[in-house]
């Protein structure tokens, strides 16, 4: 399947944010969803929250796409990243672990990530979300440019 054209892709994610709001005043947000997994691990007795199930669903959605398009295969390769930082798990693993830690700690503290603040919060015209989005967009651009300069090449 060809890459989803961007106008359609924008409409779909907007539809998801609107649908969650319309369903039960729920906010779209992958960080809150991942937080649902953390809470489930800490207190399994209460069962999974809607957030934990959203995160599980996101994983299953990736699986469904891979299955439908015949791309499903287990691989440790991470194209692009490997070319820049090396494909060896001994270096890739700790780097991704640390990056993931920054993502989780930072986004949780900020109260959301690209979906929660960027799409849902900005779409709701929540000013804190606009500030958060501006901050992570600018920071990510700067870091990506620096990595590009240090690493050289494409």
């Amino acid at each position, binding site marked *: 399947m060809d890459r*989803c054209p*961007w*106008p359609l892709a*924008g*409409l779909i994610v*907007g539809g998801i944010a*609107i649908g969650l*709001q319309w*369903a*039960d*005043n729920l*906010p779209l947000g992958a960080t809150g969803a*991942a*937080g649902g997994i*953390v809470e489930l691990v*800490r207190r399994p007795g209460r069962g*999974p929250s*809607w957030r*934990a*199930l959203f*995160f599980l*669903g*996101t994983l*299953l*959605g*990736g*699986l469904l*796409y891979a299955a439908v398009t015949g791309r499903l*295969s287990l*691989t440790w390769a*991470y194209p692009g*990243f490997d070319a820049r930082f090396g494909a060896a798990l001994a270096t*890739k693993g700790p780097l*991704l672990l640390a*990056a993931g*830690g*920054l*993502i*989780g*700690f*930072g*986004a*949780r*503290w*900020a*109260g959301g990530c690209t979906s929660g603040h*960027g*799409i*849902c919060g900005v*779409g709701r015209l929540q*000013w*804190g979300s*606009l*500030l*958060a989005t501006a901050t*992570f967009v600018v920071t990510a*651009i700067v*870091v*990506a440019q620096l*990595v590009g300069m240090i690493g050289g090449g494409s």
Partner: protein
Amino acid sequence: MSRRWVGLVFGVAFGFWLAWARLTDYRAIVGALRFQSFYLWLLFATGVATTALGLRILSRTGARTWLTRAPLAWPPVSPQRRHVVGSALFGVGGALAGACPGPIAAQIGEGRLSALFTLAGLLAGIAVADTLGKRQPLFVGAPCAGEAQEARG
């Protein structure tokens, strides 16, 4: 249909969408951040505009939620220091990993096993933030109807 089903169904749609739009691809994310492609920015702008317009129309027409027939509501979020500090840390990690929380989950679904490391870091980072009392709801102020209900349940 319960709230849990809503979460699962929309989650599957979200994950499928992430993979279809190639947001699970390091090169797509970092290429956008280096302005080698504008796909991501155009998608993002369209998504925000769709959400803003859709919510505005629904609010204006007095739509009510499917599950509880409650009015659509979301509280204001006032800008705070955490929005800057937390988001800056997130931006650094996101640019290095070429992913954010949604794509991490979808990457694993696609069979990209290196995302297991990113996921472990993500969950640990969230757990540390929660333990340190850094957990902040998206919403500051009165929780909306759905949030309050969840807090009780």
